């Protein structure tokens, strides 16, 4: 607390002031001042369009996030546990990791049509390999001595998973979740921009065509705020809880 907290508050404030000053100085339509963007933000919220778009996008983010975390973790655990599984899926992961996100999105839209499942699947597929790789590392780092202990005391599978394995995996799960969210946010917008007629990405495209930089920035700002809010209200408390035992 104290100085560090102040610095944290001060730095975004300074950025806002700088933005306002530069924008006023230039007086260009291409860079509206911060105050105008906040006004637009308020207007869009009151009109109900921004909350609706944001909710739709958030729903897609949540679905793609859950899908990629569950499947990616399961795959990563299996790959970390069994060498054969690891060797089998290694090349699949390499391919998935190296296909550009946009190619994957376009391909799924072509194959499965411009619909919701294709949109969510393409986002999840983009994130899945990174999750699997992270969790695989976590599984490999599991302490054998503790697993032996659990086995010798005949702890049930579920108890072992919950009390022995998951606490050791939690740093890896948090890392995967963090990276995952920031990546998924970005890809969901591209997916919406390319093939959906709702959500923040769709709205961005509309404002792009209208050259409405003010509204574009208002949406972006709303996005950043929601994202940071999630980090503060969900991720950080969860992580603090998981790390309580560390001295």
């Amino acid at each position: 607390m104290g100085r560090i907290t102040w610095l944290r508050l001060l730095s975004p404030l300074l950025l806002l002031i700088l933005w306002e000053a530069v924008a006023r100085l230039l007086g260009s339509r291409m860079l509206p001042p911060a105050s105008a963007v906040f006004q637009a933000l308020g207007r869009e919220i009151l009109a109900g369009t921004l909350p609706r778009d944001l909710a739709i996008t958030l729903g897609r983010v949540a679905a793609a996030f859950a899908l990629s975390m569950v499947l990616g973790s399961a795959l990563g655990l299996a790959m970390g546990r069994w060498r054969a599984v690891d060797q089998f899926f290694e090349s699949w992961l390499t391919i998935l990791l190296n296909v550009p996100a946009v190619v994957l999105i376009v391909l799924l839209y072509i194959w499965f049509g411009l619909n919701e499942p294709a949109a969510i699947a393409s986002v999840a597929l983009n994130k899945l390999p990174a999750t699997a790789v992270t969790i695989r590392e976590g599984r490999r780092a599991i302490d054998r001595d503790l697993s032996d202990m659990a086995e010798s005391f005949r702890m049930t599978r579920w108890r072992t998973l919950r009390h022995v394995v998951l606490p050791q995996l939690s740093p890896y799960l948090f890392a995967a979740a963090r990276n995952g969210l920031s990546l998924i946010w970005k890809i969901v917008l591209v997916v919406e921009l390319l093939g959906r007629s709702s959500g923040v990405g769709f709205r961005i495209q509309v404002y792009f065509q209208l050259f409405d930089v003010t509204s574009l920035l208002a949406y972006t700002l709303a996005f950043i705020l929601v994202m940071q809010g999630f980090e503060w209200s969900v991720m950080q408390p969860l992580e603090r809880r998981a790390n309580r035992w560390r001295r």
Partner: protein
Amino acid sequence: MLSVRIRTKRFAQRDVLGPLDFTLGAGEILAIVGPSGCGKSTLLRIVGGLDPDFDGRLTWSDGKTPRIGTVFQTPRLLPWRTVRQNLDLVTPGRDGGDALLRRLDLWPVRDAFAATLSVGMARRLAIARAFAIEPELVLLDEPFVSLDEAMAVQARQVLLDAWRYRPLSALLVTHDLVEAAALADRILLLSGSPARPIRTLVVPPERRRAGGDIAAGLAAEIRQALGDHFREGA
């Protein structure tokens, strides 16, 4: 209760154990003494069912594996769980844990995370855990090292109390002949590479679990009788 017959146990093409052949009676405390690194821990892993990859067989007298409580060479606690949770997680539906925590001076820290325990406390908790499951057999791998003498006495007493209270067999691995003489009914001396039994000694009934001086005297006699054949490793 158990007969152990191991022809060989190898790690990476190297024989580490065997041939080895011994029995453990019901209610018997058998000490296995040998220099460090001679394969004693491997032997305990085999008996505990953690290492099925050996040439030989374990035969349990009543046909099924008994409930086994193990004190490993390192405490192997769950650092992210409290002292009490570390006991409760291995003993669903039993509540003898409180008494053990009190006996081993862990009661005041029962709600602390195991990560915060000192080395000695962690060891005591590992001992409490092995006895909390009301084992029929305990496997003890150097359980009393790094405890100060007063605590070691207390911890040995936990073993003896449990043994008096209920039929309990124990395999005690140690490099300390005095400790073996103080606790065991029989002492199996291992030596060599791969480790083989070089002598089995029966502690005379009237001198069993007699504590301090008698055990030290017994250990001295054994050492003398063995001469150069046996040297304790640290």
